[in-house]
């Protein structure tokens, strides 16, 4: 039942939002077509402006991943993470999540395939996926799009939040499913 509601919400959300926006615009006598195209023009500029930042971030992350440096770091961290109750299988997820959205999704899928969707590692990774974000990508793209180079305290604060989210995901998983 609950799952049905969630799936329903996910399916309806975007079409409903679009309908509400154009409906309200029409009701308020906005020239919806002309105003839409006026706004849409900006899309091209923004997408082009973020390319250098995307390349810089994705290539650096690609280097770290493709070389096996990520696996090496996983091995080094395992004594520390077992102490907070994080199984070794989940460490790559915790490291990947702030770096790469598609990489993190890949790890979740792999854990689900290997250990089953209802296993502790798979559940923990799924909760991590839902409760943290691709920090480096977001910071690079958002700041890059407006030309901000000195990001001040944004990165340290975001990384602290990621760390808190990852630890919280571990603790909550152990409490609810452990």
């Amino acid at each position, binding site marked *: 039942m609950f*799952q049905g509601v*969630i799936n329903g*919400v*996910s399916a309806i959300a*975007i079409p409903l939002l679009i309908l509400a*926006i154009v409906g*309200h*615009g029409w009701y*308020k006598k*906005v020239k*919806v077509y002309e105003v839409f195209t*006026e*706004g*849409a023009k*900006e*899309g*091209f500029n*923004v*997408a*082009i402006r*973020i390319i250098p930042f995307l*390349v*810089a971030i*994705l*290539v650096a992350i*690609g*280097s*770290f991943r*493709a*070389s*096996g*440096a990520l696996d090496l770091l996983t091995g080094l961290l395992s004594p520390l993470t077992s102490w907070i109750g994080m199984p070794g299988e989940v460490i790559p997820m915790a490291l990947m999540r702030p770096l790469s959205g598609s990489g993190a999704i890949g790890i979740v899928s792999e854990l*689900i395939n290997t250990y089953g969707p209802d296993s502790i590692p798979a559940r923990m990774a*799924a*909760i*991590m*996926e*839902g*409760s943290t*974000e691709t*920090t480096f990508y977001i910071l690079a793209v*958002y*700041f890059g*799009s*407006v*030309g*901000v*180079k*000195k*990001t*001040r*305290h*944004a990165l*340290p*604060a*975001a990384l602290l*939040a*990621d760390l808190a*989210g990852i630890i919280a995901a571990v603790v*909550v998983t152990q409490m609810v499913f452990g």
Partner: protein
Amino acid sequence: MINTIWIVLMAGGILVAGFQCLGLDYSSAEGLIMNPSFIPLTDLTKGLFNSAKASVNLAMGLIGIMALWLGLMKIAEESGLVKLFARAVRPVMVRLFPDVPPDHPAMGAMVMNIAANMLGLGNAATPLGLKAMQELQKLNKVKDTATNAMATFMALNTSSVTFIPATVIGIRAAANASNPAEIIGPVILATGVSTTVAIIAIKILQKLPKYQMPKVEGKEV
């Protein structure tokens, strides 16, 4: 900080791949064996080029979606829908972003972005977030430096205030989990912790001398 992390990722990867070219094998019975090969480095090069190409594909894919949401956002702005929405959550937003005037378009865009994130609508969240950054940049007196409002907005975004983690529920459902949506409760709990930490961290860090805005024409901005 970003410079340090970037060089660690980039050079760290290259050094590790270089080391693997030695092909050291500790497990064999005859002691340490070396099987040198260049494969780890050529694989790395291939990976780097693929990442560079993927970034452009990503940006190209974003053009259409950006255009769609920015177009819709423009309608919502002109019709007054954004203002209506922003007014509803104004008390919270004014506390979080004291430097942004309550009626500034930046508030509306940020509210829409956060709402999209809560519902797990990633495709809608990014264009709205980029729009919010452009509006925040208009209030910025030092164009190459992040304002307090920008940093707070980024912390909220990266800590991801999620109510419906749609993607991961979908993956679990596809793998026949006994109850794919059971993670919603734990996700809300964990995301609540990370968002609280994000807000506390940003408010404390912005007071440190190290992270102050540069002065413009002799006065504090």
